[in-house]
């Protein structure tokens, strides 16, 4: 049987905030393919409850956001990368607002409306712009709606990437990436996606653990494919565990935002006694 073959300028594997933002920033002359394993909104972005950290308040500063990030990172952040990222935060928020993302606002003393900023763990200022407790959904739906007007982007739903194709893997000199093989779940056939550039925007790998707050798609596909293709990986021992995920026999993967504790919720044992005081006075 012949392998069905596609050719695009850019192949994006993954359809979360990263993949969609990249697609939206490519000019209309670029033919783009976006692969998603499931429905386009089954990635972690859609389920993100908190928000986006950005320096927006007049009393906040780039240096403060940088400093907080460095402290949380416990000596392993790359300071130049932290500065580079934080300094672009206002521009990124402007871009999202221009696209139509509805972040929560509040009325100021002078009657004007300004964005409501929450304060989350580790931040020394109110800095997190949000849309109630479903910021990821608001961002994901807005980006997806905008993307649907970009005729240069073809979305391939229910395609699971199998492996990257590099020059040396197919017996050519060099190791540039040439595309990827992907399994079409509707037909059960593997198809060939040839591309000038390939982007892995496949999310994390929290599904290696029994309990995870992540949707089912977080199986580390991009990390595994990149490793097999010859990419180095870094700092994979640092896996963040969320302390408060709903425990219920009829549901899985539902996060209870840390903002609840930020607003005064208490951790208690089955018999009703509070226990965090035993470990940490904060």
């Amino acid at each position: 049987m012949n392998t069905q073959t596609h050719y695009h300028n850019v192949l994006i594997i993954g359809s979360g905030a990263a993949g969609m933002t990249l697609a939206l920033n490519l000019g209309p002359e670029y033919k783009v393919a976006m692969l998603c394993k499931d429905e386009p909104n089954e990635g972690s972005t859609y389920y993100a409850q908190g928000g986006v950290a950005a320096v927006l308040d007049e009393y906040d500063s780039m240096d403060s956001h940088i400093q907080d990030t460095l402290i949380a990172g416990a000596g392993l952040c790359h300071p130049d990368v932290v500065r580079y990222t934080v300094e672009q935060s206002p521009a990124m928020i402007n871009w999202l607002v221009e696209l139509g993302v509805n972040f929560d606002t509040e009325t100021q003393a002078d009657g004007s409306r300004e964005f409501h900023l929450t304060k989350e763990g580790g931040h020394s200022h109110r800095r997190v712009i949000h849309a109630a407790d479903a910021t990821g959904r608001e961002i994901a739906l807005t980006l997806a709606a905008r993307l649907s007007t970009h005729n240069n982007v073809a979305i391939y739903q229910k395609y699971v990437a199998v492996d990257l194709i590099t020059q040396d893997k197919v017996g050519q000199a060099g190791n540039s990436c040439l595309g990827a093989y992907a399994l079409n779940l509707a037909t059960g056939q593997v198809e060939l996606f040839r591309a000038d550039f390939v982007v892995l925007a496949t999310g994390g790998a929290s599904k290696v653990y029994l309990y995870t707050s992540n949707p089912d798609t977080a199986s580390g596909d991009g990390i595994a494919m990149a490793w097999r293709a010859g990419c180095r990986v870094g700092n994979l021992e640092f896996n963040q565990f969320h302390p408060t995920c709903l425990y219920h026999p009829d549901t899985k993967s539902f996060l209870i935002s840390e903002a609840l504790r930020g607003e005064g919720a208490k951790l208690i044992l089955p018999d009703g006694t509070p226990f965090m005081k035993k470990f940490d006075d904060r």
Partner: protein
Amino acid sequence: MKRLGCDCVYLDISHKDPEFVTSHFPNIYNRCIELGIDITRSPIPIVPAAHYTCGGIVSDKNGLTDIPNLYAIGESSFTGLHGANRMASNSLLECMVFATAAAQHIQQQKGTSNADALIPPWDETQVTNSDEDVIISHNWEELRRFMWDYVGIVRTDKRLQRARRRVQLLQQEVTEYYSNYRISSDLLELRNLILVADLIIQSAIRRKESRGLHYTLDYPELLVDASDTILVPPSFG
């Protein structure tokens, strides 16, 4: 929880004004109501759960990886932003910043075309349909259970070595399965999960200190010099 042997603990916000709770956390409120829990009146049963992968594919400020024309952005990447612990809400910012940079970088590389690259078709003449799918569901559950027990929040050398032996065995089985049988979505995910689990374990074994999210009873102290754990694949360079 391990110490007390209880299935879960509780998070209680019922002392707050119900109107405040429903207006600030409508999503959580509604989801819990569907499950019969009114969070304005009773505590919420909770467990800790894996939430974010701080490490990932080594990539630069443009999202470019070690392989020409291959980019990695968002949670799959390792840019150096998060260090040993991600700060809340920096991850969506990272998605936006590196996606924007990668799009610009791609558009600066004029003249790259693989339109005519010779790529062999997918070959499945050597494989058959599997009649042993139970191996996938079994290995899937086994992996996620031992990762939780041995490579979770509190680690030791012994637990990590035990996990390493098990993951190597699973890797052999799945590699053999992958080369003999027609692929499925579950098999592809399992193959990737096992590989990433192995990389997580190898990285954890190398870190002889407790820093950020990595806590081990065998090395509770912080080393003076902080350094990244970089793993290099056999096919690197």
